[in-house]
């Protein structure tokens, strides 16, 4: 678990990644995935959250988009959503790392800014991580954003243009 939480992340991104663990745990997920990082980013007060909110993806907007994605995914197998009250369970506070969050953090925009001053890298670390989340072409996050009518490419371009 701790290896994704190394100090190179900087304090702000580290706290957002910790937030992703909470987002996964409170949803009863066994793994922390890219969608939990997206939820945690949207709940932060970072410039990345403001950029997401501009396209309707505040925390509630991300939750709604993910819910629509899950409903559509289950419908593809002919399954109706199960009522939340049937899924109430004590949570495991220590979900493991999923593949999609590892991929997101390795695809982030960090390398582009390697030569930039430390202050800029830290200030934009969450935005750079969000770029990594948004660069996935397949899976839960791109599906949720497609159903929400969000242009991922345009969002990535806006984040990359941040200085």
């Amino acid at each position, binding site marked *: 678990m701790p290896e994704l939480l190394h100090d190179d992340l900087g304090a702000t991104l580290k706290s957002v990644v910790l937030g992703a663990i909470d987002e996964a745990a409170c949803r009863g997920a066994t793994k922390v995935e890219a969608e939990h990082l997206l939820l945690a980013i949207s709940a932060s007060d970072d410039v990345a959250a403001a950029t997401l909110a501009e396209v309707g993806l505040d925390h509630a907007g991300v939750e709604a988009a993910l819910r629509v994605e899950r409903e559509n995914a*289950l419908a593809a197998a002919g399954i109706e959503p199960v009522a939340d009250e049937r899924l109430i369970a004590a949570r495991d506070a220590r979900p493991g790392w999923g593949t999609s969050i590892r991929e997101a953090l390795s695809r982030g925009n960090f390398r582009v800014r390697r030569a930039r001053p430390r202050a800029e890298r830290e200030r934009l670390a969450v935005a750079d991580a969000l770029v990594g989340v948004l660069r996935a072409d397949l899976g839960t996050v791109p599906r949720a954003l497609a*159903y929400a009518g969000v242009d991922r490419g345009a969002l990535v371009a806006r984040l990359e243009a941040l200085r």
Partner: protein
Amino acid sequence: MQSPDPTGSEASDLAAVVALRELADRLEDAAVERAMRAGWSWTQVAEGLGVTRQAVHKKHHRRLEGAGLDLRRRNA
């Protein structure tokens, strides 16, 4: 090959697998907890799930103990 449509039919079939696994995990957590709160033993829960007692204990013991369930005398 250009990246496929993430909401196309092949992608949706794969996403259904992801969603079903997640749903099965959450249903299992809730169902095991309900049975244990009703006084079932680990062996009974394991039999109900068609897995070994060791497997169900390893997967759920920490979570249920953390939730304050009295799991003593459930060794049968």
